[in-house]
């Protein structure tokens, strides 16, 4: 159900952009206004969401410890899966954000003949990593179209990405990997019963959207080619605040741009905020040193307690009878 809603939504967006540009000629709307609004929503929305999380307190220091804690010098501790200081936390977070440490730990449990069998399962980690890194490299690559003078490092990334020099223009490995990984992520949502059960429209929508972006990009580069020089002029126009969306650049470019705009605008309102949230997760970004350094709860409440005096008042006679010392005889 959620899958169909999401598919129709993305298909609708594509049709909308096609009709809007091709039939109605709304180049300025799709080529300037919407991208600006989307970008604004993304940056402000993202920052606002993170800010809101920041206004929530961290009352307790509760890292999920994933290895031996620091204790005696003769016990080998796991400094990064169970960090006891800030440096360890930085490494733990880097491993988490850059290498998906927790997913790498993933296991799969199945029942065979009334017995539970556990085994390692790294597919999600592998394709998840592939998906995110492809996306990142593609994002960076696109800066050749955002900056008038293309910096050398972007050209290097690009030449590495097109290393095999297959096809013309060279096929980017990341294009293939992004599509493959997104397809994998989609396929597991459809094929694995547990994952299908937990998936909602909000899970399919970004996948379809990103697949739509990737495919429209690939079409634009290899199949329904657009004048890349003209495309860059539209983009440079945007970043230099002199928008001049041109009708000479093919409609596929505007569809691509519209899908990207949708992704940007949708981002802060969605689960995609895990990008910001992963940095703020108190089970990962705190050191396991609660017994060494006191953690202060900003709203530490005054609570009603049962004092020793009240206790002794109730049990004094019984205590005296068995020789337990008391404060008041």
């Amino acid at each position, binding site marked *: 159900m959620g899958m169909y809603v999401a598919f129709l939504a993305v298909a609708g967006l594509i049709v909308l952009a096609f009709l809007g540009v091709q039939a109605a000629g709304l180049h300025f709307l799709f080529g300037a206004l919407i991208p600006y609004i989307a970008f604004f929503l993304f940056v402000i929305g993202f920052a606002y969401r993170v800010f809101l999380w920041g206004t929530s307190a961290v009352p307790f220091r509760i890292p999920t410890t994933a290895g031996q804690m620091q204790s005696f010098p003769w016990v080998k501790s796991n400094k990064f899966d169970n960090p006891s200081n800030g440096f360890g936390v930085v490494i733990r977070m880097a491993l988490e954000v850059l290498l998906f440490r927790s997913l790498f730990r993933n296991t799969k449990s199945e029942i065979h003949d009334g017995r539970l069998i556990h085994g390692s399962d790294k597919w999600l980690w592998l394709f998840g990593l592939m998906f995110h890194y492809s996306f990142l490299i593609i994002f960076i690559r696109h800066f050749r179209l955002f900056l008038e003078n293309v910096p050398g490092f972007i050209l290097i990334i690009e030449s590495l990405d097109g290393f095999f020099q297959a096809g013309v223009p060279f096929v980017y490995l990341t294009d293939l990997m992004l599509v493959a990984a997104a397809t994998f992520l989609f396929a597991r949502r459809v094929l694995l019963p547990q994952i299908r059960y937990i998936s909602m429209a909000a899970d399919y929508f970004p996948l379809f959207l990103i697949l739509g972006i990737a495919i429209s990009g690939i079409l634009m580069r290899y199949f329904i*080619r657009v004048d*890349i020089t003209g495309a860059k002029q539209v983009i440079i126009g945007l970043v230099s605040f002199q928008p001049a969306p041109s009708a000479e650049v093919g409609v596929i470019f505007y569809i691509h741009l519209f899908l990207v705009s949708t992704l940007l605008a949708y981002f802060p309102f969605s689960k995609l905020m895990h990008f910001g949230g992963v940095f703020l997760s108190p089970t990962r970004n705190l050191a396991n040193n609660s017994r060494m350094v006191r953690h202060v709860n900003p709203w530490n409440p005054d609570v009603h307690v049962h004092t020793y005096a009240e206790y002794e008042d109730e049990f004094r006679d019984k205590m005296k009878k068995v020789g337990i010392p008391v404060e008041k005889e």
Partner: protein
Amino acid sequence: MYNGGKIILGLIVFIGLMAAPFIFGLGKGNAKPNPSIDTPAIKAMEKKQCVEAKAVMKTEHMKMLNDWRDSVVRDGKRLYVATDGKKYDMSLQNTCMKCHSNKAQFCDKCHIYVGAKPYCWDCHIAPKEGA
């Protein structure tokens, strides 16, 4: 605990990165690359017409060159019949570069602008230009 400082710092970095293209783009005009067709051979042409129409050449020249290469190198076929019926020798140096003898002022203009790095000149010898 709130860790407000770290969050604000992170957000500043985020906004800074997002704003970077705009900061670089600010104040700069949108200078179009202007590939020059000012060569003796083109000047001498009666009707200034490439192998195919200009719009087609813009988006398809890389594919055409690739097809030409494959056709010549693999099949030994050198004859290209254009949409308008004209026949051309499939040759980068003898056909394309004959007119567009100004690589720096023609090819490179757009290629540098969009950061494309064609590998034509890995094998072919790039024309030496005086101008």
